[in-house]
């Protein structure tokens, strides 16, 4: 099983005629994803890699029912695209657009929450359930995804899209497959946090462990630690937090926009301490992750 999406999930791409979207559409189809329609206002009637393009989500869904939307539109229209997807009944949105104004992001998340939908992102590279589907562009070309990702029983959640593939590749190299990998985006405010996704993995009988990649800034890792302490989830969690060096260079903003450190709150060192206290296994080097996963899965 997988979380969020499965092999038969039918995907709509909003902004499909953009250069990046057209590329990941072609590669995702090659990987096996069921991308059934695209939307770009004013470009209805076109085909992108044989996927029909419509002017509206409503028009697209009338011809090609879908379950999930990838939102890959310019930042200024992302809020509108989100409302359009929600109004037409889509309940899984993967927002790959980056640099969306914060005010709009908060409104997007509010709208998704009210509709009972799950939004992943913004600034997400997407979701990969190895061997089944990809919603987004993580991992690059279809062949590269096949090489880095292996079907299996470990979930991966990462604040960095690039490092998600890096971790999957490490696991794959050690013969450990993945159930579902989610790039949640590196922004300070995102639709799906570690805490939002953990219950989904908990409910997935085919996930046995979870690897998470954290970064400086925000309180997402701390909140996960609180939850683990209080709820004792069945899944062992192995975490890695990058950016410890930033603690020594206060005031400079490194990495993703979310990686902003204000005092001790949100600092990688504090996150690591807090997670260890809660019983989360924290790797001090990336290279330790496969060994730690093998140990907990035995």
């Amino acid at each position, binding site marked *: 099983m997988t979380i969020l999406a499965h092999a038969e999930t039918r995907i709509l791409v909003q902004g499909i005629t953009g250069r990046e979207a057209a590329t990941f559409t072609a590669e995702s189809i090659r990987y096996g994803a069921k991308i059934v329609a695209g939307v770009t206002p004013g470009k209805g009637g076109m085909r992108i890699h044989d996927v029909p393009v419509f002017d509206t989500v409503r028009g697209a869904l009338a011809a090609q029912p879908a379950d999930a939307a990838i939102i890959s539109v310019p930042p200024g229209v992302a809020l509108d695209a989100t409302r359009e997807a929600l109004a037409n009944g889509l309940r899984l949105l993967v927002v790959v657009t980056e*640099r969306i104004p914060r005010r709009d992001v908060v409104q997007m998340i509010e709208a998704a929450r009210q509709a009972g939908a799950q939004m992943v992102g913004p600034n997400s590279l997407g979701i990969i359930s190895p061997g089944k589907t990809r919603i987004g562009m993580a991992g690059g070309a279809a062949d*590269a995804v096949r090489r880095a990702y292996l079907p299996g029983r470990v979930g991966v959640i990462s604040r960095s899209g*690039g490092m998600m593939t890096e971790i999957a590749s490490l696991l794959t190299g050690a013969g450990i497959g993945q159930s579902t990998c989610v790039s949640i985006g590196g922004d300070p405010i995102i639709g799906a946090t570690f805490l939002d996704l953990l219950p989904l993995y908990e409910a997935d009988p085919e996930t046995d462990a979870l690897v998470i990649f954290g970064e400086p800034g925000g309180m997402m890792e701390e909140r996960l630690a609180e939850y683990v302490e209080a709820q004792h989830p069945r899944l062992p969690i192995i975490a890695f937090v*990058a950016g410890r*060096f930033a603690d020594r260079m206060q005031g*400079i903003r490194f*990495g993703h926009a979310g990686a902003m450190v204000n005092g001790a709150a949100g600092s990688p060192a504090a996150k690591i301490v807090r997670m260890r206290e809660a019983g989360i296994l924290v790797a001090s080097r990336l290279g330790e992750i496969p060994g730690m996963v093998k140990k907990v899965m035995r």
Partner: protein
Amino acid sequence: MIIVEYEAKALLKARGLPIPDGMTADTPDDARYAAETLGGAVVLKVQIPMGGRMKAGGVRFADTPEAAEAAARDLLGMTLLGWRVERLLVERRLAIAGEYYLGATYDSGQRSALLLASAAGGIDIEAHGGLGQVRFSPNVSIPDYVGREAAAALGLAGKAFAQVSGLAKSLAETFVQWDALLLECNPLLVDDGGAWWIADVHLELDDDALYRQKALLELAPFSAALAARRSAFEMSAAALDERDHRGAAGRLVALDGTIGLIIGGGGASLTAMDALLDAGLSPANYCEIGGNPSVWKVKELTKLILRQPQVEKLVVIMNVVSNTRVDLMARGVIKGILELGRDPRDVIAAFRIPGSWEDEGAKLLDHYGVRHFGRETTIEGVIEEIR
């Protein structure tokens, strides 16, 4: 982008918010004139885009125009928190009966907009804790009750409650309409006559929303000029991005070590920096590149990094993202080194080259005798190899 105090105050005043009378001063004479015009005691504050000005010595009080002139002579031209002081705000000094804190920001945990209110205003607000929190949706129209809840959190009653309710609602509205990330009144003062004043304000706008705040930016030219003034090194990376939009040379930050870095992606950069410092090595810069930069851009970036005098070696780390064509990366780096008349074999300490077109990239690096690694070597593994 940070809007400095005097420009933020002028903008807030135009929206009807209570701002004390004040004038700017670029010279000691200006300060004297301002003090004479305002009459009575004044406060002089440096106009730099930083918090913590009071603690850093950037705020002075003066009872006479002569004292204001002398204080301005001290403040103007000094370097404070990394900024040269070029302008002061001279304000009429208020008779303080109470100090409060009121601010609007976003809460990344709850993913909502938030008014923060505390009856303990002042410079150490962060240390006090105990802030009242009122969440609101960042829509164009803010309900009145949001303001009332904030005023209640301040423990106000009667006339003060009504006044601050309106002020807080207006603050929340302004925060949303300006696409601010932070709009803070600290302190919010009540004077001995019962009038409320925003005595200091901290305003930070969302860089990702500046495209739709052009009218506002036109009214804050001093702040816009300060924001544009980055270090020459960082400017160069930005200039590369402007000249060629393919891929991003991204964020380049100068540090003082000896190892120049070019790294693909933010997460990988954070990981590599940790590994470098753990290995006792010192980075000369932080640099994350993204997307598919052209050979020209990589070449120029390489030269930019290697031209820093303290840089001895270059480390290039790509991760397994595979969106970036690593053969083009390798070509750009090698070209840059050759154009500087140096030998890639000596300059490049390590090149991690997994990604699309990795075989072509590896072939090129082999040709120049450059040490390279594939996906089987972790980011940390590469760093340990060069130690």
